[in-house]
């Protein structure tokens, strides 16, 4: 009988710790926008299907998205983006694997907006580069959101823009990241 109780208690402790104690946050509906500004025209594309996991203890931060899930206003732009520039059949995903460098500055149990620095490997168009950018993590009544803005030079990722539209597409693209995380229970 005692043995059974011990087993039960152990089971309870193990299951409780796997459910709650991870300190991880995730989303599958994160938002990333990119914006290209030129005197000729402005082009925006939105992706609302970004997966991301943030570990509040270690600061580990990952993003993954599907290139084809970027939505444009104009059909032709979306087609060119996928077929010519990003070659999304060949490189269907873009990922970021990195770290919130100063995660200890963020108090996940206290409301507030915390300035953070994120550093890691960004993979676009099959090319991986180390990037570093400032951002914010906002804690509000147990919910966690993250925001960042940075820019990416197309040439760094071997993305070639044909001469014909070179004046219409900026050489440096502004990327806006907005994530609303949920506690990750698993």
């Amino acid at each position, binding site marked *: 009988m005692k043995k059974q109780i011990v087993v039960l208690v152990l089971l309870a402790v193990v299951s409780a710790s796997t459910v709650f104690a991870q300190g991880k946050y995730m989303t599958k509906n994160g*938002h990333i926008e990119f914006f290209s500004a030129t005197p000729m025209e402005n082009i925006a594309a939105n992706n609302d*299907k970004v997966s991301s996991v943030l570990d509040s203890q270690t600061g580990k931060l990952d993003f993954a998205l599907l290139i084809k899930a970027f939505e444009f206003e104009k059909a032709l732009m979306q087609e060119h983006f996928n077929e010519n520039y990003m070659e999304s059949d060949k490189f*269907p995903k873009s990922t970021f694997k990195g770290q919130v460098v100063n995660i200890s500055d963020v108090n996940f149990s206290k409301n507030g907006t915390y300035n953070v620095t994120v550093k890691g490997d960004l993979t676009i168009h099959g090319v991986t580069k180390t990037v570093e950018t400032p951002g914010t993590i906002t804690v509000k009544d147990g919910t966690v959101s993250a925001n960042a803005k940075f820019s990416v030079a197309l040439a760094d990722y071997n993305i070639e823009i044909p001469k014909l539209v070179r004046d219409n597409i900026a050489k440096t693209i502004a990327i806006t990241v907005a994530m609303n995380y949920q506690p990750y229970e698993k």
Partner: protein
Amino acid sequence: MKKYILIAILAIGAIGAYIGKTMYDKPVASTADVKTEVQIDAATLFTEFEQNEQSAGDKYNDKAIAVKGTVQGVTTEGDKTTVMLNGGDMGGVSCEMQDKTGVDNLKQGDAVTIKGVCTGYLTDVILVRCVLDK
């Protein structure tokens, strides 16, 4: 005579420019107006991607497909609503709705068919520009 030729050339040029501009500005098609090429079960679609992402991607990506399944949940974030269809224990089919008609009334466990454009697989199969198929 020369004057008429000049006018004709200008007219052709103007028409060409107009057609070009119209094509350039053409909006992305609404999924409601697109004929679906494939009809498939959510669980089957998820399993195909889980087992071989490459071949499933070649088969379904960029295509408007009709997916039949049971609703696991509906989430709204900002102006985007997502309906998650059950695909088994490991994940499902995430449908980002273009048209929210009828979505508010959906409950967990409802059987639905959703039309959307397949974009690939992350932790779930992801469909964008979805509409509820009646």
